[in-house]
């Protein structure tokens, strides 16, 4: 599982931009938003985009592209159970928060204005 967590984390770091928004609160909001959508998308749940709040539409769009890419690139995801996928996503999210927020060396991350 640890290896899978690292592979997916590396892919997100390379491919996505939402975890690198300017400030801690943006990053937190984006990471929570995208990781809130991913389990539903992995489960094949249909999400009615037009009914979502604007903010959630943004997270959905980022998460939808990411889940399509992950399912294509990491074939083992299709064979994992829902609980295994949850465990995997929890692990990736925890590490992503660590690298991009908690242990982040970016000195502007907590500047109170943009």
């Amino acid at each position, binding site marked *: 599982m640890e290896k899978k967590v690292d592979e997916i984390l590396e892919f997100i770091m390379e491919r996505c931009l939402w975890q690198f928004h300017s400030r801690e609160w943006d990053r937190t909001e984006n990471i929570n938003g995208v990781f809130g959508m991913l389990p539903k998308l992995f489960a094949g749940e249909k999400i009615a985009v037009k009914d979502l709040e604007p*903010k959630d539409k943004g997270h959905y769009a980022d998460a*939808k*592209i990411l889940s399509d890419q992950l399912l294509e690139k990491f074939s083992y995801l299709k064979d994992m159970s829902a609980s295994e996928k949850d465990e995997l996503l929890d692990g990736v999210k925890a590490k992503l928060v660590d690298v991009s927020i908690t242990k982040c060396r970016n000195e502007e991350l907590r500047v109170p204005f943009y």
Partner: protein
Amino acid sequence: MPLKLFKCDETIPERERHVYIKEDGEDLTQYLPASNVTTIPGTLSERGCSYCGAKLVIGGVLKDTIQLVHGPIGCTYNTWHTKRYPSDNNNFQLKYGWSTDMKEGNVVFGGMKKLKQAINEAFDAFPEVKRMMVYVTCATALIGDDIKSVIKEVEEEREDVDLFAVQCPGFAGVSQSMGHHVFNIDWMKEKVGTYEPEIKSEYTVNIIGDYNIQGDTFVMNDYLERMGIQVIAHFTGNGTYDALRGMHRAKLNLTNCARSAGYIANELKKKYGIPRLDVDTWGYDYAKEGLRKLGAYFGIEDKAEQVIAEEDAKWGAKMKWYKERLAGKKLCIWTGGPRLWHWTKALEDDLGMEVVAMSSKFGHQEDFEKVISRGRKGTIYIDDGNELEFFEVLDMVKPDVVLTGPRVGEMVKKLHIPYINGHGYHNGPYMGFEGSVNMARDMYNAINSPLWGLAGKDIRESAKEAITQGV
């Protein structure tokens, strides 16, 4: 590998904080170069000034606005015509430069009277233009000219005009980045929400951080139009002053250059609840991803797929042709900041090239987080690089081509290494599908040009021989 001190920097060891070489097993929590900090004395920085960041990069792009520079004449000339951003109204913004042409006498006795006269003169000379940006420069900031009060007077006297004061002199920050910041924040505070755009589609966006370099905006707008999406404001490629005043009416902020314009995207999110979606508009595969993201946001995925299929049919084979010929070629990207992270994976994934060194003039640590995450192991990452460092890097990495600006490009050319203009492009646009092919073509032509070999030959002896032999 920890942060690196170049040999040429032995007398300025502070430079070590600004250079990093990525190695296996390292992550961002261990090393992140210092950036967006004051240039170290002793290093010959390639940076621009803060006024330049506001005027040349953002404001000066607008196609319907007089850009009056309140300062000595050089401040106008040096921020005019070097960026090659056309418009669909016959390039008004590229044809003219406006300056109050401040002289010693004006500095001693104040330049506000001269400013008012220049504003009126410019409006009289261009009676069809009703919008103006007035830029303070180092000289006029130091003497304390109050340009806001002059603007207010003019607005009261000429009722049909609207003016914006850009109060960001060259010394306001450590680089041009401060100019981006001040322009974004002041525009948001003073102008957004003061104009109501006509809404023609249920899908509306602001495109933020694209400056129509050699027609990039035209490429992007074409894709969006085919998807039925209305662009409320383009910040600022081929843009208009009033469209930027109406940015509050878009349903989405599609952000490309997060460095120069992320601020306004953030503020629009904070004040009006408009989401910010970041995309890479350079890169062939990224173009597909960006359109798919936009399609997902509005629930119009089918339209996105249609545009992708049409563009792929036009450009896919060409891209493949260049990939076969550029794979394995090594390159450096020495530009402003964001193009490092926009381009590195795109050039590696789309074309199989290897980005071996990257340098940013004005990027912040956020940009280095992105580029180090996307970049290769073994690649050199430099903040605020200087010319001697570039010489040393060239020796270390031996690139096949360097993407950089014309000034550093001239240095590279003298070493007979191909260079591509990474700021204004050689033969753009470089965005989208078409742009990716253009960029690949320019790099292919540069690398394979016979000129680099010929330029290194001394023909004097053979010419003398030919003359002697009467050839």
